[in-house]
Every structure is written in structure tokens, then in C-alpha cells.
């Protein structure tokens, strides 16, 4: 019975972890893209 609850906990944790890791990866990608956009904009303005 203990194992039953433990694996239920693992299941819920795994589900949330996948969502959280994916959201973090999206946020990091967004930050990288915005930095790149600023850099390219500065490069265009400098020309």
C-alpha cells in the first residue's frame, strides 16, 4: 500500500516536472531570442 502511494506521488511529480521544465525552457529561449533581437536591431541602427 505504501508503494501504491509512493508511485502515485512519483506520477504526479513527474507530470508537473515535465510541465515546469518545458515552461522554463520556453522562458530561457524567449530571453535568448529577445537578447538576439536587441543585438540585431542595434547592428541595423548602426549601419
Amino acid at each position, binding site marked *: 500500500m505504501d508503494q501504491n502511494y509512493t508511485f*502515485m506521488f*512519483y*506520477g504526479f511529480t*513527474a507530470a508537473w516536472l515535465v510541465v515546469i521544465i518545458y*515552461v522554463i525552457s520556453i522562458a530561457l529561449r524567449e530571453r535568448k*531570442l529577445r537578447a538576439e533581437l536587441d543585438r540585431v536591431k542595434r*547592428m541595423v541602427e548602426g549601419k
Partner: protein
Amino acid sequence: MLSGAILAWNLHTMFLRVPDELNQGAIFRIIYFHVPSAITSFTGFFFAMFASVAYLASKNLRFDAIAASINEVSLAFATITLITGSLWGRIAWGIWWTWDARLTSYFVCWLLYVGYLMLRRAIDDPTTRARLCAVLSIFACADIVIVWKSIEWFRTQHPGPVLSIRNGGGMAPGMEAPIWWNLLALLLLSTVLIMLRMRQDAIGREIDSLRRYANAF
């Protein structure tokens, strides 16, 4: 916000209102993430297939961006389905995995969409990438039908239909309702994630056009 509120409320319902299942005990609650994640991924893959068909018909790269965003988000939910299913199987069957028709066809589906994302990274030319990925997205979607019907077409270790919308489904209404609420919450969450991914794609296109403009001088 709404998605988060529904998920939080459902956690309360799942743990405090729904009793343990007679044969499986507490582990049956994994179904409240396993099934909604699977249906969310199927829904996404289907919408991506329509976007891919729209791309092939119109050659508008915006449809390719929509399909890519949907497929990436849906793959995350497909991953949740595989992991939670494996954890449930470890307790219910005593094994992590078995090569039965439902599990194998879903794993093949997961591999196809991993392949889709790898293909996107491997091709630099936007139009070639969009064309090949659209074809793969349409082809991969055929597997969804096999996954969905596999528990009716084949004898599988995977449980038969449990939802009331399918023949043979038989859950108590009080136990089934949190599945639908969680599905709504995950569909809302996936919509938000898809919109974020599409915004990133738009930023990427803006960077590309600015680079082309800068290189023209």
C-alpha cells in the same frame, strides 16, 4: 490563471473527495493526469495536421509555424502520458513496460514527433523544412487513430475504454468528472504554451528579416 485554478481545485477533489479505487487503491489517481495528457496531445497533433495541410495548400509559412508550435507542446504532454502510464503499470502490472499494441503504437507516435522536431533542426531552408515537416506531421497523425482504436482492435494489456464517451466505458460519474476538468485545464495550458511558442517564432522571423536587411547593405 484559469488553468492553474482548475488544476489546484482538481487536486483537492482528487485527494479529498474521490475515494481509492477498489482494486487498484490510490495509484488509480494517475489516470487524472494520464488520460487528459493523452487526449491533449492527440488534440494538438490533430490541429497540427490541419495546419500542415493548410501549409501544403497555401505555402504560407505561418501555418508551418503553427504546426511546429502545436507539435512541440503536444509532445510534452505525450511525454507526461508515457511516464505516468509507466509508473501506473509498475504497480498495477508489476512491470514498467510491455510491448502491447496500445503502448507500442503510442511510443511510435512519440518517436515520430521527436523525429519531427529533429527534422526541423536538421534543415536550414525554411520552405524545404516546412514542406517535409508538413508531410511528416500528416503521416504521423495517422498513428493517432491506431493508438486510439488499438484497445478495441487488439487484445492488449492496457485497460479497455474507461470513459463514458466510449463503448464499454464504466467509471462512476463522481470519479470520471475530474478527468474532464483536468482535460479542460491542460487544454487551456497547452493553448497558452502554443501562443508563447508562436510569439517566439514571430521574433525569430523578425530577427531573420533584420539580418537580411543588414546584409543587404
